[in-house]
């Protein structure tokens, strides 16, 4: 892969759905085999194009959840009830279907395992998806970088990749996971139980002197809050990369 992943013309390709993994009640991962896939970096996304029988087409962007080491392309999609595309991808699509896509796209919101700086990942809801590609890359590449993830979900049932995150963080690969559940918590819950705030960020974030690499992904208000807190705590704006989504992904 290497530089081929971001250079050159992006053409539409057909990927075949090998498997659909229901991650949470509203979120599913589509595991795609894409012949000739050029490879990608952790954090990049693809454009998906759907075509109806009458020729109508529409496109959306989705983050890649699989690491560069995985030859498959895994897209994790949250179903938005009033959306046009996500209820099709999460609900209609099944193994054997084909999906038209082009990518990988985006050369900025990416993390590469050669970067040994401590990493702070901050995820709101399905904002975890591109960060999961980084976490999987970190593990697959046996990176020496220390990684902390602060991950905000509504409830325990909405936590995407819950078991995999638990396994990776227990496996001594240098990943620490801090959950916060904003709406409801199971009994005996030991994580945070509120919306992300300054105190939480201060407790989880690496000290300023570590000059960490920061990736924040989530809804706009979440990203604004997290980025603002880190700037206030003395983080340099150039350490912080953000990716935001509104309620318009559809």
């Amino acid at each position: 892969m290497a530089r081929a992943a971001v250079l050159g013309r992006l053409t539409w390709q057909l990927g075949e759905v090998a498997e659909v993994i229901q991650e949470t009640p509203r979120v599913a991962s589509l595991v795609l085999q894409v012949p000739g896939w050029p490879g990608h970096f952790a954090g990049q996304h693809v454009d998906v194009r759907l075509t109806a029988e009458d020729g109508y087409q529409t496109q959306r962007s989705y983050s890649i959840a699989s690491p560069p080491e995985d030859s498959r392309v895994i897209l994790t999609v949250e179903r938005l009830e009033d959306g046009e595309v996500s209820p099709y991808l999460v609900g209609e699509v099944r193994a054997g279907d084909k999906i038209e896509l082009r990518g990988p796209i985006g050369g900025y919101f990416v993390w590469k395992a050669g970067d040994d700086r401590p990493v702070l990942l901050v995820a709101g809801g399905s904002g975890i998806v591109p960060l999961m590609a980084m976490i999987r890359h970190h593990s697959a590449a046996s990176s020496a970088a220390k990684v902390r993830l602060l991950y905000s979900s509504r409830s325990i049932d909405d936590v995407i990749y819950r078991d995999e995150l638990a396994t990776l963080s227990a496996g001594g690969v240098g990943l620490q996971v801090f959950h916060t559940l904003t709406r409801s918590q199971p009994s005996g819950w030991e994580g945070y139980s509120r919306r992300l705030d300054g105190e939480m960020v201060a407790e989880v974030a690496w000290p300023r002197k570590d000059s960490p690499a920061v990736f924040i992904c989530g809804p706009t208000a979440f990203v604004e809050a997290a980025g603002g807190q880190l700037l206030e705590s003395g983080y340099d704006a150039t350490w912080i990369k953000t990716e935001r989504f509104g309620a318009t992904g559809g």
Partner: protein
Amino acid sequence: MAFISRGFKGKRRDVTSSSRVPPGQHVVHDFPVLSAGPTPRLPLTDWTFSIVGEVDEPKSWTWDELRKLPSETITVDIHCVTKWSKLDTSWTGVSLDTLLEHVETAAEFAVAFSDGGYTTNLPIEDLTDGKAWIAFEYGGQPLDPEHGGPARLLVPHLYLWKSAKWVRGITLQNEDEPGFWESNGYNLRGDPWREQRYWGD
């Protein structure tokens, strides 16, 4: 187009507005926010807008000076490369024509630069003849910081990443030079009607 997405119907299309929506785009009614880094906050007293580079004499305006220039309120459609379009958005700002009147230049290209380090490149042709503004109001209200306030470049006929948020000036150049997203896989020009999203489009 030979490929059909099995079982995909799509939502009922709005026929009246489809002629205003470029290929691959869909209309939204809210105003999504996309930026590569945290939102910068700069006091207006420290704010300036500058035209530098290949000019006989660089020119700079303070916030108060810029606000005293003739401004225009325009209603335009905007198109983001992430596939959303928003129709009939209302902005108030100073036309780039008004600002460029104050400098002598033979340059053909510009790089807009912003607080936070963001840059984007444009041919001068795309900034002149009533096609670009330094906008400081959206919908009659001061522009929100997350949407680029206090002021952003507005070039509505190109994808919205060209409309640099938190803009602080433009550098005029004799040669085209890729800006931030243009160095990260996105098209040098970004014309939504020709669907120039990425390199090679």
